[in-house]
């Protein structure tokens, strides 16, 4: 069966790639090329500025409207890391280790609007499917795995292969998604230990069979000037959990079902939103130890935002359960506040974000809290160019998320050029 799926899906992506780049040759006016180059220098201030890392990212995106109802897009991302620290001149075989690079396919999909019926849109290929009404902390957004490869690209997700259908019925939209294969979380270079707490010797991926495919359903609508959606997801957790330690550490990805609800609206011009997701995980044992209980647990986010007459924008979110947290009793509470103000017709933006984490809100808070501070200045000297100076500062007690990051305080400077 897997061969059949591969035979159906891979040609779509391949034909996408071939078509778009072929189209560039034959009909350049019909294909648009866009992208950006971003270079940033990050100074680990706990270790001194000499340990600054350099990250580079080049994204290329080609898209084409093949007809009014057919659209295709493909994006490629090229990343390189650090300046090489050379002791001798590198030979050809050492180039990769001295100049590490990543090249990855971002999205590659075809959209077929009004497919058979006027009210049906289909989207097939590697794609980002963003669900949820909250800002960045979306417990209902489980279709794409988390992308933790860049710590400053918070909330990033990996586009994955999927078939998505949207059916529009008046004020309602019914969305169905089928993801034939599971894809796991992406970790930063050498970052398994910091995120998983241990480095697995092996991981076991869900079998690539039809019955292990993932699917999701969502119904969106509007009532009393409130946008809302109800969703259901059946698939796998993208972060592995230990299931065998008898012959080295082995980790697997627990199956889970998620029932979600989100809403967004406004009250007297105050914006508000909320998102709740009830997780139903499968039990995972390592020997006789229960590593993940099958008890259901609820993650949720509630937020408000407001712009004051002087232009200051304030956003506050309460989050119960971070991306990496799971299991009843293991979810921390976070209060996240951000304030920003734009000047010079949006060319200059000052932002200050802060977060307070409480590991055990019913216990001794003084011994279980963490804090984060995220100041940032960004400036656009001209169109398509953005310069950013910011910092990521954290501190916290043992066992807190911010406490685990306290040795990673960073000051960063980014330059981004869009084209």
């Amino acid at each position, binding site marked *: 069966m897997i061969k059949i799926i591969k035979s159906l899906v891979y040609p779509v992506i391949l034909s996408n790639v071939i078509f778009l780049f072929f189209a560039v040759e034959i009909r350049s006016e019909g294909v648009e090329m866009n992208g950006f180059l971003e270079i940033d220098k990050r100074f680990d201030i706990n270790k001194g500025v000499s340990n600054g890392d350099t990250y580079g990212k080049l994204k290329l995106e080609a898209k084409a409207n093949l007809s009014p109802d057919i659209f295709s897009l493909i994006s490629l991302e090229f990343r390189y890391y650090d300046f090489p620290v050379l002791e001798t001149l590198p030979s050809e075989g050492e180039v990769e280790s001295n100049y590490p690079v990543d090249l990855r396919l971002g999205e590659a999909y075809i959209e077929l609007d009004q497919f058979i019926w006027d009210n049906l849109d289909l989207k097939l290929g590697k794609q980002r499917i963003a669900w949820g*009404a909250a800002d960045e902390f979306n417990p209902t957004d489980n279709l794409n795995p988390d992308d933790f490869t860049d710590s400053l690209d918070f909330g990033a997700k990996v586009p994955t292969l999927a078939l998505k259908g949207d059916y529009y019925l008046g004020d309602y939209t019914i969305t169905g998604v089928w993801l034939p294969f599971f894809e796991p979380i992406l970790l930063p270079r050498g970052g398994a230990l910091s995120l998983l707490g241990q480095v697995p010797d092996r991981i076991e991926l869900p079998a690539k069979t039809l019955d292990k495919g993932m699917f999701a359903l969502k119904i969106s609508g509007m009532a009393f000037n409130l946008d809302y959606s109800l969703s259901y997801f059946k698939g796998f957790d993208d972060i592995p959990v230990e299931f065998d330690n008898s012959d080295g550490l082995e980790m697997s990805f627990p199956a889970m079902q998620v029932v979600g609800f989100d809403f*967004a609206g406004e009250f007297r011009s105050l914006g*508000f939103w909320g998102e709740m997701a009830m997780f139903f995980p499968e039990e995972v044992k390592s020997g006789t130890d229960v590593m993940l209980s099958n008890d259901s647990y609820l993650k949720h986010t509630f937020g408000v935002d407001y712009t004051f007459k002087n232009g200051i924008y304030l956003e506050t979110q309460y989050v119960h359960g971070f991306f990496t947290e799971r299991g009843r009793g293991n979810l921390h509470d976070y209060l996240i506040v951000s304030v920003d103000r734009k000047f010079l*017709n*949006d060319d200059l933006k000052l932002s200050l974000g802060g977060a307070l984490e409480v590991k055990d809100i019913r216990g001794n808070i003084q011994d279980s809290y963490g804090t984060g501070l995220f100041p940032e200045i960004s400036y656009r000297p001209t169109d*398509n160019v*953005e310069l950013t100076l910011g910092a990521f500062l954290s501190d916290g007690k043992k066992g807190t998320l911010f406490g685990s990051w306290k040795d990673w305080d960073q000051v960063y400077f980014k330059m981004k050029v869009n084209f």
Partner: protein
Amino acid sequence: MKKLSIILLAAALFPLVAKSAFALTGDEILKRAEEAMNAPQDRTVTEKMVLIKADGSEKERTIRFYQKGNDKRLVVFLSPADIKGVGFLSLSKDRMYLYLPAFRKVRRIASHIKNEDFMGTDFSYENMAETKYTADYLAILQQAQDSALEKEDPNQYILELKPRPGVDVSYSRQRMWVDKETFIPAKTEYFSPGGKLVKVLTYENIEKVDGYWFPMKMTMETVKTEHRTVLEVLEIKHDSGLADNFFTERNLKRQAR
């Protein structure tokens, strides 16, 4: 002789009586202006948008603006690259959406943003959204208060707009000049809640296209910074049959791609 006197008196008084009978009130003129701006079934305009700083330096954008009736608006940025594909959908004063292509997500935005600059321009979100002058403002014809104004500018009505009681709008008052022939506004001054003049919008090159009057150039100036945003029409279409379901999240994403 008595009959003749009555006829002469009636003839002498007729212009005055007729003038008061046929004169429009401020609210009626405002309604006519609103109808003139929203006259077509729908309108699609591609516009060059130039942002000009006080020192004369310029930035250029291209936008496509769709409107239907006095409440449905959809705006998409076509250039430059860093904001290309950003889309704005307004369905009513308290139902607005922003599409940011980098996140592949439509986000609802609350009306607290209405007074903010729209994507760094001098137009506010309120300016870009619905045009419902009569629902939000009461208009007083200034010439009726001061006849000297009529001699100063005989071709334009001058209206003083005050927010209707209980209506939440960004400005404490507006002063609007309306062309007597086309009923298209020629200029609008916007005053802050403190009474200061904050913005001035001028309409130029008013042309009849497809049977509808429309200003081919609009300039919004922020008085304090002397920053201006000029909108010039590159292409305009009327009554192309945009359905109500054109103004949806589905189509916002579609137009933005």
